[in-house]
């Protein structure tokens, strides 16, 4: 049984589909990377899984299952018991995602108290263990610090500690290192990877950094303008991208332009609320677009959402 099963998830704000019908699956213990530009809907999709989309956003799906449980049919109380315990999320900006008025220790213990019923000394003990687990030195004194007294990297570790406090089966990390310095990024990534292996969690890593995904993930889903345009196993997808957008993403990596005069960028911008194409969403910007692409939307077939997927070896260089 898959850990997470999503079929045709849609999240709409008014008439604007931030997430426009995506399918994803995640097996237990698997690391799935979701890549895409800002505005691709990757964060919104995962927020919908967590049940954190509020009015005026509307969430709908043919299937939204976690361990066989229908997430759409949960009562608020059932959802609260699930979220923060079996499914947890780590957010991008740890500094603003932690409550400035309470110590970090308190905020971690809160999860322990709410879901595991731990109190007093037992809670404190477990909290300190968690801080050690996320490699925070001198846990005892750090526990009584306030978020603004800790660095960005420290705060992110605290967030991770909070998220894994109840040993979740699924951890969603929404660009966990984007707000951090490059040197700290690697540390946090290693930490997440290690924790995933040790705890046997499924991990969904949302990022716009292809290099990270290439190193860490087993499978990856590429999103554009609210749709998943390609999914595949990691080495294969990067060696032989089948969707023009994936190819363009890879081509835009600075290392691939070594020796050239200009970086290769895809012309145009992501469609906004007003100018959503009626055909394939990438067609206005796609180098390979044909008449059919402009008039109708391709469905996903064999992991690619394209009428004319690129054959291996046919990539333009």
């Amino acid at each position: 049984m898959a850990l997470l099963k999503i079929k045709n998830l849609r999240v709409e704000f008014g008439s604007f589909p931030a997430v426009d019908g995506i399918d994803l699956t995640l097996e237990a213990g698997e690391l799935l990377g979701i890549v895409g530009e800002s505005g691709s809907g990757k964060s919104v999709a995962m927020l919908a899984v967590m049940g954190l989309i509020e009015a005026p956003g509307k969430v709908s799906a043919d299937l939204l299952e976690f361990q066989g449980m229908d997430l759409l049919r949960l009562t608020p109380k059932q959802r609260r018991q699930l979220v923060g315990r079996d499914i947890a999320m780590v957010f991008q900006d740890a500094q603003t995602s932690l409550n400035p008025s309470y110590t970090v220790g308190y905020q971690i213990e809160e999860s322990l108290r709410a879901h595991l019923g731990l109190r007093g000394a037992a809670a404190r003990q477990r909290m300190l263990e968690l801080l050690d687990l996320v490699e925070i030195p001198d846990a005892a004194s750090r526990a009584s610090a306030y978020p603004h007294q800790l660095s960005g990297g420290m705060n992110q570790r605290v967030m991770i500690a909070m998220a894994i406090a109840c040993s979740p089966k699924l951890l969603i990390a929404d660009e966990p290192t984007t707000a951090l310095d490059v040197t700290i990024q690697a540390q946090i990534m290693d930490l997440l990877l290690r924790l995933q292996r040790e705890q046997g969690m499924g991990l969904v890593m949302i990022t716009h950094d292809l290099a990270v995904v290439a190193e860490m993930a087993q499978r990856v889903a590429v999103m554009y303008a609210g749709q998943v345009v390609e999914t595949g196993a990691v080495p294969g997808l990067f060696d032989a991208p089948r969707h023009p957008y994936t190819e363009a993403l890879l081509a835009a990596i600075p290392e691939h332009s070594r020796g050239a005069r200009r970086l290769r960028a895809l012309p145009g911008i992501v469609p906004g609320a007003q100018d959503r194409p009626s055909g394939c969403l990438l067609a206005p910007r796609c180098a390979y677009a044909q008449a059919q692409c402009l008039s109708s939307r391709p469905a996903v077939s064999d992991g690619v959402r394209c009428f004319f997927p690129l054959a291996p070896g046919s990539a333009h260089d």
Partner: protein
Amino acid sequence: MFSFILKRLATLIPTLIGITLVAFGLIRLIPGDPIEVMMGERRLDPEVHAAMVKSMGLDQPLATQYFRYLGNLLHGDLGQSLVSREPVAKEFAALFPATVELALTALLLAVALGLLLGMLAGLKRGSLFDQGVMGMATVGYSMPVFWWGLILIMFFSVNLGWTPVSGRISIEYDVARVSGFLLLDSWLSGEEGAFSSALAHLLLPAVVLGTSSLAVVARMTRSSMLEVLREDYVRTARAKGLSPVRVVVVHALRNALIPVLTVVGMQTGSLLAGAVLTETIFSWPGIGKWLIDSIARRDYPVVQAGILISALTFIAVNLCVDILYGVVNPRIRAQ
């Protein structure tokens, strides 16, 4: 934390000196000869005039006069009322508790109700309740307080007869003065009906005085609440699967109240100013009414003292608010 308080006090010193200068200069700034201004007469007998000048030390250089004034202040000597010949400080001590009782009750009302209504309005944003509360709040601080008092008197005292029209307690009760706060004293006196009479007399003036502040606190709490509910850490609290009550009360409210604190501090200022008007309407024997009467009677030492004390009270309250803010806001406290 301690150094924080010290720093705050240090910045206050120039302001305090400035206030005393203003109070000191009040009489001398009024156009005309100070003695004539105080006596209210023109063309005094020159001998009397000279004697007065001497006794009041007005022939001394200004600086000396000022330091003499300061010295008196520090001894608690606020001068002498021209009308009653009594020491101002003594009259003031008799009347101040009445104003404090009124202002404090009004403040309590405003803060308790304002926080509650504002919080609920923020949580139910856009609902009929929210719009109703905000609409009433806007009307509430757009009203002239003295008119509001008159209207309520007209309605509750005259038409319905539910509340008394003026004074602090029915004249039939003679309550021994222990604290100066009639609610407390009447309760301590054990006299039948004294406490309820004092309460009935306090009710309407406190409501009138507190209305404007209630409106401001409610609006501020609502907008603060709305801002805080949008913050990332509230989303995190929800992502942790915490109960909605906990998310609101523990995570949101705690941070939403911080800016409201500053507003409450400023409201005490308008409560002081409003007390002047409210006491006049309800014939409430406090320093506000005393101040106004003294202006009409040209009793300038009283006016001088009244201005000084009001300013000092306001400064003191703001200092407390500043300190409280430092305690409550973790970014400052943890330094």
